[in-house]
């Protein structure tokens, strides 16, 4: 089993969700995140004083999959999140030892 984590631009989240639904992904977790990569930050101005904001708002999306589905899921996320401009984000994959469905106690791939 794999845990796929994606950091994407907030305004692409809806497209990524739709793309995942279209390939049959049944659940995902999203959270607000902040950070920077090569995009660095941006500038805000208050009463003429300019502030350099280092951290840019992003969304973190997490999806659990079978080993076989991982490549499809990654492809769907990358395609839907891409704008071609700097700051589009990253996707990375972890191996997952165990998954348990809280309601039923099911374990392993059946719990995904």
């Amino acid at each position, binding site marked *: 089993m794999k845990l796929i984590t994606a950091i994407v631009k907030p305004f692409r989240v809806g497209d990524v969700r739709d793309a995942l639904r279209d390939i049959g992904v049944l659940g995902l977790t999203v959270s607000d995140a902040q950070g920077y990569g090569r995009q660095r930050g941006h500038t*805000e101005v208050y*009463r*003429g*004083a300019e*502030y350099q904001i280092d951290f840019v708002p992003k969304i973190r999306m997490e999806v659990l999959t079978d080993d076989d589905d991982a490549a499809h899921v990654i492809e769907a996320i990358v395609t839907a999140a891409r704008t071609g401009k700097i700051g589009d984000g990253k996707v990375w994959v972890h191996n997952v030892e165990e998954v348990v469905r809280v309601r039923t106690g099911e374990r392993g791939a059946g719990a995904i």
Partner: protein
Amino acid sequence: MHLLTEVAQVNSGDTAWIIVCTALVLLMTPGLAFFYAGMVRSKHALAMIMQSFVTIAIVSVTWVLVGYSLAFDHDVGGGLVGGLHLAGLAHAEVAVPGMHLTVPPLAFVAFQMMFAILTAALLSGASADRMRFGAFVTFIAIWSVVVYAPLAHWTWSPQGWLHQAGLLDFAGGTVVEICSGASALALVLVIGPRRGWPREMMAPHNLPLTLLGAGLLWFGWIGFNAGSALSAGYLAASAALATHLSGVGGMIGWLVCEKRLTGKATTLGAASGAVAGLVAITPAAGFLSPLPALLLGATAGVVSLFAVRLKFRFKYDDSLDVVAVHYVGGVIGTLFVGLFAAAAVNPSVRHQGLLLGGGPTQLARQGVGVLAATTFAFTATYAIAWVLRATIGLRVEPDEETEGLDSSQHAETAYEFTATSGLGRIS
């Protein structure tokens, strides 16, 4: 405060208007609370609001006990301060010494009380985010008696020396704006900068609150200035219109200038510019025709925008720019009276403004008022703050400042941002 009427008889229209204006000016202080609170970081938001609210309570009491008497009782000598015959508002219902009002004297007492409250509350923006609550309360109580009341006497009591010297200050260019601005500078020089200033970002946390507050201030300012006619007639109408137009001019001036400088017109700029224009018209509302009022507002909006930079240049942490907006706007407005005062607007104008062919007499008198109010307010406030710093202390502890004044001073938080922040049990 220029009284045209000689009839010491109560007029019901005037009385109704002044009581309404009393309520309008009262609303400015909660408005200021939100104007300021939106500009601080979220961990200080409640403390910022609280300083304005508690000022309503503190200064109402000091005003009743001694402030009103020191400001408006018969002069005790030299036009410097009133006596204590009216202390505790004893005899205050009979008459306002030297004035011939068409409203009950207690209406005047209440109306003027709201000015004393707002002026004191303005200072909280300069020392924001680092002053102990107890120290603030103590400071404001002393300041309202030692600084505000005498300056109100100088300018607005018919026996005050600036009044006698011919200063025209319709609703408080010297008494409210220069006074709060010069005092703010003295206070921040004594208390020192916020931890991390100017290196760390201290951006506003909730600009919608700031714009809401600016709207309430604008609304109340009509009562502040038009009420200062102390009657409901031509002069009040003229002052109301001039006030609004100057606020408009300030917003336009700030936004146009800001757009050219940084490429964006900001909401904080709109609010700040409007307030700068309203500040500037305060001494001038009952003396200027509509177009000079618009010009005054635009001038104040542009100059205040540039004046914000002074604190970075000279390294004083005036957190919310009380100096740049109130001091600078107050000076511009007070001097504008010397340029544009019109007898057609206010028959009590003896020397018309320089640009209306009246010569430099009135401008010189306005200059004297600016210098006198600046010197007195700065010096006296510096002394009060210095003594308090040496005795009870002014600042919170460094860790309390980092933690935020909301929790360290008031044991509260303004916002519950996450589900986990609401977890807790009654202890």
